[in-house]
């Protein structure tokens, strides 16, 4: 069985997908037709971008306002030593197109906030959040819930990672964590360090969720949060259920637009 929408080169490139019953030419065509916005081209964004590019996701947006620092290279594997000082969106985009010319890359060299998120989210089929701060994470959650865009969340701390998938109509990140910690409560990577390979695993899980979503195949993390501990080499699952009181996706949501929330501090909904 062949699908006429795949060229001979594509049938070769994606042959290990195409021969799988669970993916096949149709699943591969779905991937080629898909668009994903990757928020952050850092530790998590690197493996996400690499595997989405390799899988042939047709259009990939890269959002990041940082430049590459040498201290990033211990874990941010789409950037190289010669990229130090360059915008991350540039080196990440070159990595993606170098790996797979099928992929169209949109570079968004900006900081995602309440003003910039809405148009971006609406332009993609799915968002992958590999950002590095709570305000961006709450902005992504709230914008995706309001817009009805699915997103994959992943976050890391030292040896631990968390990943979950939001699907429209299901529970959201605020159902689990209504507010972020007070600023200063939780040290960041620069202060506390992070095992370099940790985002490789967690970002790999995030990319897996995105690829499964488009094929489609398998069971998503839409009702649970996967918690990975690289030190113990254990995983836990925390059930994620819809909170009827959730201000964004609950029975009587109070957040109708991003103007209703101040995305600083704890990102609380007052």
């Amino acid at each position, binding site marked *: 069985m062949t699908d006429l929408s795949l060229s001979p080169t594509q049938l070769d490139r994606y042959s290990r997908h195409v021969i799988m019953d669970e993916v096949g030419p149709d699943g591969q065509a779905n991937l080629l037709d898909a668009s994903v916005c990757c928020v952050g081209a850092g530790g998590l964004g690197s493996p996400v971008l690499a595997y989405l590019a390799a899988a042939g996701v047709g259009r990939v947006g890269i959002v990041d306002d940082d430049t590459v620092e040498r201290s990033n290279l211990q874990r941010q594997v789409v950037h190289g030593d010669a990229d130090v000082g360059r915008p991350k969106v540039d080196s990440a985009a070159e990595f993606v197109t170098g790996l797979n010319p099928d992929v169209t890359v949109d570079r968004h060299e900006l900081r995602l906030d309440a003003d910039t998120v809405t148009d971006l989210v609406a332009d993609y089929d799915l968002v992958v959040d590999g950002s590095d701060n709570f305000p961006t994470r709450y902005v992504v959650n709230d914008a995706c819930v309001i817009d009805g865009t699915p997103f994959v969340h992943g976050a890391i701390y030292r040896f631990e990672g968390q990943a979950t998938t939001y699907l429209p109509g299901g529970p959201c990140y605020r159902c689990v964590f209504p507010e972020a910690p007070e600023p200063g409560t939780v040290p960041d990577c620069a202060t506390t360090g992070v095992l370099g390979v940790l985002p490789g695993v967690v970002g790999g899980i995030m990319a897996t969720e995105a690829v499964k979503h488009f094929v489609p195949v398998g069971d998503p993390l839409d009702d649970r949060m996967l918690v990975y501990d690289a030190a113990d080499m254990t995983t*836990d699952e925390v059930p994620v259920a819809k909170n009827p009181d959730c201000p964004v996706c609950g029975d009587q949501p109070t957040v109708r637009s991003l103007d209703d929330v101040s995305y600083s501090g704890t990102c609380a909904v007052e």
Partner: protein
Amino acid sequence: MQWKLFADIAERAGTDAVAVRLDGDDPTVGDALDALLETYPALRERVLVDGEPESRDGIAPDVNVLLDGADVFTTADGLATEVSEGAELALFPPVSGG
């Protein structure tokens, strides 16, 4: 029963697993938390917050208290939930690194 601690909470305690023994009748999640905080007072300021709504029994809004994996505030009676000897409790906060 056993407490499992995650992320910065485990880091503050210096361990990610704490066994507690409760002698009284019908022990609750709150009793188990008191025992944990007595042993690791450094957790107090991270987990407890003044002025939190009564619905969260004074627990910080970013800390999930899990009993056998499920949130005690949305699926049970909060800190008043009774716990059995073999229960696994957890303090589970969000992380943001990327």
